[in-house]
């Protein structure tokens, strides 16, 4: 069995799909890497829900500013053309449909686009942050999974989510280490598949029925 795409390769594949000029919110963790992989000449403006448009990379060690952080509370920078604003404005941008793409992680995604990414069984205190606002408000919601299946091998793309929902029928596209999958009114449609992985092998790792695009693109292995 071949190794799947690295997190950076998944991020690069997602970055390829961001339109020039898009306003994009990147979730904490792996989605943040998308900003590092934008194709040359493509300008996207990164939104951080704690009140920043034009978020840039982490500053050099020693140049961090405690007043300038991202939604993950990490030091960041601000790019030319950026803006600061308060929380109600920030979520007006989100809920009001001004954010073109929200890219988040997930515990489970269902074939109808249901997303579960905020609560695990047995967690001590719940914490939701901005995820429910993002999936309800962004024009497009993309999910990134570092691994197509969970650590125990169980599918994370399923017919119905078993974990508490972040939002119903909100996911438009899924990027994993093996495939790119569109969520359509007719169910899941695989558009990209890792070289060396068969359609049957992908279906076996997925808890919902997959269809495969006629012009299936093969993703090169590293």
């Amino acid at each position, binding site marked *: 069995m071949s190794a799947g795409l690295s997190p950076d390769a998944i991020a690069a594949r997602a970055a390829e799909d961001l339109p020039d000029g898009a306003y994009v919110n990147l979730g904490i963790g792996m989605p943040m890497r998308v900003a590092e992989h934008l194709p040359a000449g493509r300008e996207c403006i990164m939104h951080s829900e*704690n009140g920043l448009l034009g978020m840039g990379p982490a500053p050099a060690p020693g140049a961090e500013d405690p*007043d300038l952080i991202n939604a993950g509370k990490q030091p960041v920078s601000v790019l030319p053309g950026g803006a*600061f604003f308060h*929380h109600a404005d920030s979520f007006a941008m989100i809920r009001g449909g001004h954010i073109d793409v929200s890219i988040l992680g997930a515990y489970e995604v269902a074939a109808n686009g249901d997303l579960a990414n905020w609560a695990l069984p047995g967690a*001590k205190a719940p914490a939701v942050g901005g995820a*429910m606002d993002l999936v309800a408000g962004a024009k497009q919601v993309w999910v990134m999974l570092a691994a197509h299946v969970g650590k125990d091998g169980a599918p994370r793309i399923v017919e119905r989510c078993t974990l508490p929902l972040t939002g119903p029928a909100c996911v438009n596209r899924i990027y994993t280490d093996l495939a790119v999958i569109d969520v359509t009114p007719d169910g899941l449609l695989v558009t990209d598949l890792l070289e060396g992985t068969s359609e049957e092998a992908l279906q076996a790792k997925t808890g919902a029925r997959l269809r495969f695009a006629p012009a299936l693109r093969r993703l090169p292995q590293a």
Partner: protein
Amino acid sequence: MIDKRYRGVAEALAHCPDLRDGAVVLVAGFGDAGVPVVLLEAVSELGLRNLTIVSNNAGSGEQGLAKLLRSGSVSRIVCSFPRSAGSVAFEALYDAGRLDLEVVPQGTLAERIRAGGAGIPAFFTPTAYGTELAAGKEVREFEGRHYVMERAIRGDVALIHAATGDRWGNLTYAKTARNFNPVMATAASTTIAEVRRFVDEVPPETVVTPGIFVQRMVEVGV
């Protein structure tokens, strides 16, 4: 002559009828940015009881909000992301069953406070529809989409942190330390601002929080 500047932190908190047992206290900040740490630590010395805290996070380490939680003054917290790296004071109280927690999506929290400051008693939002955070709440359909009714939040007191302020209470903020500060300033009976630096006059074009929303200020240097 109007002058909302107080000589010291103790003076700014003294003889404040809204700061009492059972008060609802809005606490601004996101992560460690824009948190009114000096005011929080002074409030923790007042021996208050049964406070309700409204805040995005629930403090980290032993400073600021964490210190107020440790003081035993808080019985309830309304929060979007209470559990995070270093939220030991919160976890100790919550795990011991000594703290009621209401988890609110971050954008809904911001909008509930905005509504409170704007005289709007309730509103409908798409956020959290179809999730357990909407359980028991009124749902209505507008133009084919479902929305959840959320109630406004008002505080007896708001504790905020600003970068500069003048004697009229006009305030500016620093970068992403703005976050919940301008929103919370509008939504309390008494808004108390700790200000990094007093200035003679904030230029009217650059005022972020107009002084009408601010009752008391103290210069803290940080």
